[in-house]
């Protein structure tokens, strides 16, 4: 050992050698992240569900109802319409071919003219929650306009102007502005948590795997020796190459999302790069913590896997953390992804200044001191190798 190179640089060189000579790392560092990025960048080309098929059942079959069916067919921007009967519609909904169905009741025309206020119904399928919500809001707006049209016609026949009539028919006009995502693009908020989420998972696994390899192959003592007997130096030298690879990856995907695909960004991109860098480092530190707790590669990988998959649910995208049970809310704080996503939506989407989110930044920094808790145990495992190889 005497004639070998020592110090952080030597560890670093050794790690780069290991990293570039194993096919496993090519998969982990390049191929899987690339696959995931391409997947999420291409899986939702429309951004918002479009052309969702719904059915119309016309029990009345009158001039008015047929006219209405025509108008629905012409006005529905995000739905395609199919004419059918009720039994068939229900069957098609159960088969997943239709997402909902408008029913015009029998005697609709007669009931309107007699003032019986007949009721149009829209049945939709909430098992597909996304598709269901989109069709529901489209159809509700459409039905509102259609039923208002009769009222408008009567008023105009009485000589009211359009403006006067609308002032009576719809005195209060609400407009909802989605902050930072005017097109209601699902990709905008899904991609910005799914890709970092997968990245977090891969970083934890890579860290645990690469340190675990030393323990499993019984090279950990050599690794520590090269680092002058200091585990901190050994870790810095080992993790630096991966940090570099993952940070570059994060920068590339953020640049593509914000600069090329023009996803909403209301702060300087530097803040998002900082956010991503903190996420990468926090994930590496978690990896060190896990292998330190369980210094057997396979056990630490099981733990990382169980943890990494849960991060998605606890990040509060799609279902907000505030709506979870209170102890689950507390539990969400053990996942850096939760803070990453919070910073993303507060800063990139809402354009808030960083000091509003200083707690989230601080929380990400807390993850960076986690390895300190476990260093003695990990060092013992590396030097004495008293754990099973796995």
């Amino acid at each position, binding site marked *: 050992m005497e004639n070998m190179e020592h110090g952080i640089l030597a560890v670093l060189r050794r790690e780069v050698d290991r990293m570039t000579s194993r096919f496993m790392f090519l998969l982990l560092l390049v191929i899987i992240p690339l696959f995931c990025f391409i997947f999420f960048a291409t899986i939702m080309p429309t951004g918002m569900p479009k052309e969702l098929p719904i059915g119309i059942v016309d029990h009345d079959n009158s001039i008015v109802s047929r006219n209405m069916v025509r108008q629905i067919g012409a006005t529905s921007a995000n739905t395609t319409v199919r004419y059918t009967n009720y039994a068939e519609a229900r069957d098609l909904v159960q088969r997943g071919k239709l997402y909902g169905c408008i029913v015009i009741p029998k005697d609709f025309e007669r009931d309107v003219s007699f003032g019986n206020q007949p009721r149009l119904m829209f049945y939709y399928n909430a098992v597909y929650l996304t598709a269901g919500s989109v069709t529901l809001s489209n159809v509700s707006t459409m039905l509102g306009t259609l*039923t208002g049209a009769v009222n408008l016609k009567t008023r105009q026949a009485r000589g009211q102007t359009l403006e006067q009539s609308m002032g009576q028919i719809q005195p209060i006009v609400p407009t909802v502005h989605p902050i930072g995502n005017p097109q209601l693009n699902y990709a905008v908020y899904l991609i910005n948590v799914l890709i970092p989420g997968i990245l977090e998972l891969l970083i934890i696994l890579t860290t645990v*795997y690469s340190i675990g390899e030393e323990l499993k192959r019984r090279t950990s003592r050599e690794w520590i020796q090269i680092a002058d007997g200091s585990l901190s130096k050994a870790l810095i030298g080992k993790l630096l190459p991966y940090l570099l690879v993952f940070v570059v990856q994060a920068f590339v995907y953020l640049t593509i999302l914000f600069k090329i695909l023009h996803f909403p960004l209301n702060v300087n991109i530097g803040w998002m790069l900082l956010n991503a860098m903190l996420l990468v480092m926090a994930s590496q530190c978690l990896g060190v913590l896990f292998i330190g707790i369980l210094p057997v590669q396979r056990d630490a990988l099981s733990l990382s896997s169980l943890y990494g998959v849960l991060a998605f649910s606890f990040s509060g995208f799609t279902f907000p953390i505030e709506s979870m049970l209170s102890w689950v809310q507390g539990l969400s704080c053990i996942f850096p992804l939760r803070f990453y996503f919070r910073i993303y939506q507060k800063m990139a989407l809402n354009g808030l200044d960083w000091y509003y989110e200083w707690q989230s930044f601080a929380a990400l920094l807390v993850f960076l001191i986690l390895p300190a808790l476990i260093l003695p145990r990990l060092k013992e495992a590396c030097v004495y190798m008293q754990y099973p190889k796995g």
Partner: protein
Amino acid sequence: MAVKTIWHTIKEGFRDAILIASEELHTIFTDTGVLIIFFAAGLIYPVVYNLVYMNEVVREVPVAVVDMSHSSMSRQFIRHIDATPDVSVDFRTSSLEEAKKLYGTSDVVGIIYIPKSFSDDIQSGRQTHVDAFVNMATMLYYKAVYQAINYVSLDMGTKIQIGNLMAKGMTYKQAEIQAMPAKYGTVALFNSQTGYASFLIPCVLILIIQQTLVIGVGIRAGTDRENNVLRGFLPMRKIYHGALRTVIGRGLAYYAIYLFIGVYNLAIMPKVFNLPHFISFTDLLLFLIPFTSACVFFAMALSVFFYNREEVFVLYLFTSIPLLFMSGGPWPVDNIPSFWRLFSGFFPSTFGIRAFNKLNSMGASFYQITFEMRWLWILTGVYFVVVVLLYRWQLYEDTRKDLKRLK
């Protein structure tokens, strides 16, 4: 003579298969790593996911209201907004600046802005405009605010209209008919409380079955390779010298465990956590038989490519998220590009999730899901043949390496 030999081979094959199955079960139950994946993940994850999404719906989303009108009408509007189950008015301010500050510093996820002219507009018969700004961290916030403000605007608007018409001499009934010549209603056919858990968890339950099976079987295969002589795929023992019997034997072992896990996941969990459960137990078994078989052979086919015990975690785990996405649950199938739809066809979970959603959450019958069921059977058949071929190839490789060593 020939007939006797065939019978003999078949009999011997079955005997070996049973031996292999019991040996495999024994190995599984003595390997903590596999047990954690099959039982800890397979049985505890369903509970964890149910707890995370326990509340099903987003209620009382906190908003701040900027009331520039300061009129009894604007106050009435705010009261009505606050009364909806979707939204809770936590702050009232009279400047947009203050509301923006609250948006940054508090939990407020939306701002509703009532203009100065609100009451005057309404009283003089002009349309007035109310704006809402919503945080897009999740679509559910948007949905809550959208629903609340639309409902209140429509409801209050109609009352104003009726009042105006009555002031012109109509009776209440006449005025109501004029204002609403026809009504409309919306009803969720299935998942009638539009619950988030009821929508997502059935998909996740199916995925858990497939993913834990692939990971568990992958660990088993990787471990074998680490322990076997010359890192061979199968143990160098006589009973394993037949691809078909080994595949059937091991398949039976996984199948037995996963029928149990399947029933726990898909029959017990939905009832315990009050998720949709329209499916009858017989139908569930009729679904589980091909779905579990497809997953077992799929897992066994992939396992051939894992050379170390831990590789499967590192290389396979990430697929869970894309697979969930392609299943048709979170994102409508009609909107998935055809390349990815084709790609998703290789995974049993894709058709498993679609079939189970329809049977379990939408009360469909088997004749309505022939497409999904047919694919599950096709995948079972295809992966069975693939696994047998892969095992045969591995046996050949193992023997070749062994012969080389002996030379």
